[in-house]
């Protein structure tokens, strides 16, 4: 837990819109949360819930057009990133805030060696000669567990496996000692053993570098393993935000509870039919006026159809929840 430690990143009422053929879609609608220095936060939700767009917004990488950050503030150490000019933003990217992506196969430039790309990043942000940058890059590759880093550095991305490439991405992302790492499904494209290794790597490096991590994932198991706090998103907004233990043991939002219920448990006596959340995610073009989860929710009442619940403060060791009728915490 990082209670009391200083707030590193504070997102307030973020709204991101995409212009589509059918009309304007709000992929992120009024998202607010804080990230404290040094903590690991999981940003969880199903595909299309806006978690990746939220991550991209922090570095202002939402593709524009068609995307647009329509409203909100993203304060990083008290400075609103949305007010910076492109030059100032470039200085922050890869240096104070880094991001790694889902697809290690395509995320690196195929026509330059990994060394060349790492040296560029280092020299963009630190005063280094080419030789110093190369030494630093080799050191970083060694840290992320690449064997023979002095040889590997001169290889091209296509000569490395997926897991290796993701390690290179991590090495590149951490090379300038960022305060915040945004990891967008860093292990989704990897096989299970590699996933575990890459996750361990992120966790151990996080301790070494004392940075905060926002881990964007749909995998609740991963969140339970590495995060101290989780933010659950549904349909463009945050539905629950809290520390791992209460969130996993006593989820208060019906959606979180539904998600947790639908994780298969191998140790159960027999594998029955997996519980599912009934219904479909609403169309982002035709969002209901009330709670977006209302038509799938067993606890929905009249008020849930009429107005949107706001995220509460979550006082007293409970999770913060955006629900008119949250599940009661059993004492």
């Amino acid at each position, binding site marked *: 837990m990082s209670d009391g430690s200083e707030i590193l990143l504070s997102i307030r009422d973020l709204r991101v819109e995409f212009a589509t053929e059918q009309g304007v879609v709000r992929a992120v609608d009024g998202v607010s949360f804080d990230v404290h220095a040094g903590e690991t936060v999981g940003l969880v939700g199903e595909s299309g819930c806006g978690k990746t767009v939220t991550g991209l917004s922090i*570095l202002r990488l939402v593709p524009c057009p068609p995307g647009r950050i329509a409203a909100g503030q993203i304060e990083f150490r008290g400075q609103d990133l949305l007010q910076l000019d492109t030059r100032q933003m470039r200085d*922050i990217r890869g240096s104070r805030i880094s991001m790694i*992506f889902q697809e290690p196969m395509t995320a690196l430039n195929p026509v330059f*060696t990994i060394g060349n790309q790492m040296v560029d990043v280092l020299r*963009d942000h630190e005063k280094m000669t080419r030789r110093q940058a190369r030494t630093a890059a080799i050191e970083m590759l060694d840290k992320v567990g690449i064997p023979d880093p002095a040889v590997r550095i001169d290889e091209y991305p296509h000569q490395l496996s997926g897991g290796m490439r993701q390690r290179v991405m991590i090495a590149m*992302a951490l090379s300038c000692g960022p305060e915040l790492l945004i990891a967008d499904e860093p292990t989704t494209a990897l096989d299970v053993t590699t996933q575990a290794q890459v996750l361990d790597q992120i966790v151990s490096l996080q301790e070494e570098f004392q940075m905060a991590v926002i881990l964007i994932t749909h995998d609740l198991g991963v969140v339970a393993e590495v995060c101290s706090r989780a933010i659950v998103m549904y349909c463009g907004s945050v539905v629950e935000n809290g520390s791992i233990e209460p969130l996993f043991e006593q989820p208060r939002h019906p959606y979180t509870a539904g998600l947790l219920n639908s994780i298969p448990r191998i140790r159960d006596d027999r594998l029955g039919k997996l519980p599912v959340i009934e219904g479909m995610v609403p169309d982002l073009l035709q969002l209901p006026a009330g709670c977006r989860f209302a038509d799938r929710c067993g606890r929905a009442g009249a008020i849930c159809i009429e107005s949107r619940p706001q995220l509460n403060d979550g006082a007293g060791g409970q999770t913060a929840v955006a629900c008119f009728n949250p599940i009661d915490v059993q004492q």
Partner: protein
Amino acid sequence: MEILQYSVRKLIAGIPLVLGVTFISFLLMVYFGPDKTYELLGKNPTPEQIEEVRRELGYDQPFLTRYALYVQEIATLNFGSSESSGELVSSLLARTIPVSIALITPGFVLGNLLGVLFALIAAYHRGSWADKFIMGASAVGMSISFLIAIIAFQIIFSSNFGLGLFPVRGWNVHSFGDYLSYVTVPTLATVFVALGYNTRFYRAVIVEEMTRDHVRTAKAFGTPPARLFYKNILKNSMIPIITRVVFSIPFVVISGSLLIESYFGIPGVGKVTFDAITSGDQPVLKAVVGLTAALFVLAQLLTDILYRAVDPRVSLT
């Protein structure tokens, strides 16, 4: 070493291509091309005279024998003399190919450079008015016939109705100033016609590269725009660009620009080829066809080697 081995292999593999192209072209030339016999004879020739001219032209030989002779000519690069002017084909080509190259190069280079430039502006401002304007203008440019463009440019720049700045026809080049005055209007016409297609082609290539994951990664690491363009976008677009540019070289060098040369009365290889086709001047045609095929093989080799140079994933095996 790798490149040398590859080149030798590729050149040997190119021989069937050259043979195929020349065989088909020669077949068409012999059975469907004009017959030169009666052009060379006077009025009322005797059967003996006809016989003799046909023997001189080699028309009396069986087709395969004539084709074998042709292959031998290609191998030795000795195509004999033109049947129209009597000039040696080699000296004819040596005289006209440089003219064609000098004529077409500025337009070729400018057409591609400007194409990339406009494509960049359009691609970087996708969906904006600048993009729409450039794409609209290139569609208009593509739709205007080359002939109309040539005539329009001649009227605008070379006639008394227009600016009257440049000569309408001819190629009387003795200095760089002469060169500029003769090459400007053809160049403008070529660029005008090529630009629309080039811009659309390059825009598609650049837009495709701009939306790649590695471009987003580079942005996420604070890469300055100039390097993002050079290292991520341009370097990765080189394969389609090289393909397009290098494969146009054989046309540019050998066939020249047939329309340009005939409309501007420029004695380049395109005009020579055109005259040879209409008059059935087989030695010249044989040389042009053979050289074009050979240049294609070379262009193919060159593209492969350049691919290797820009993309480490390509291996020459």
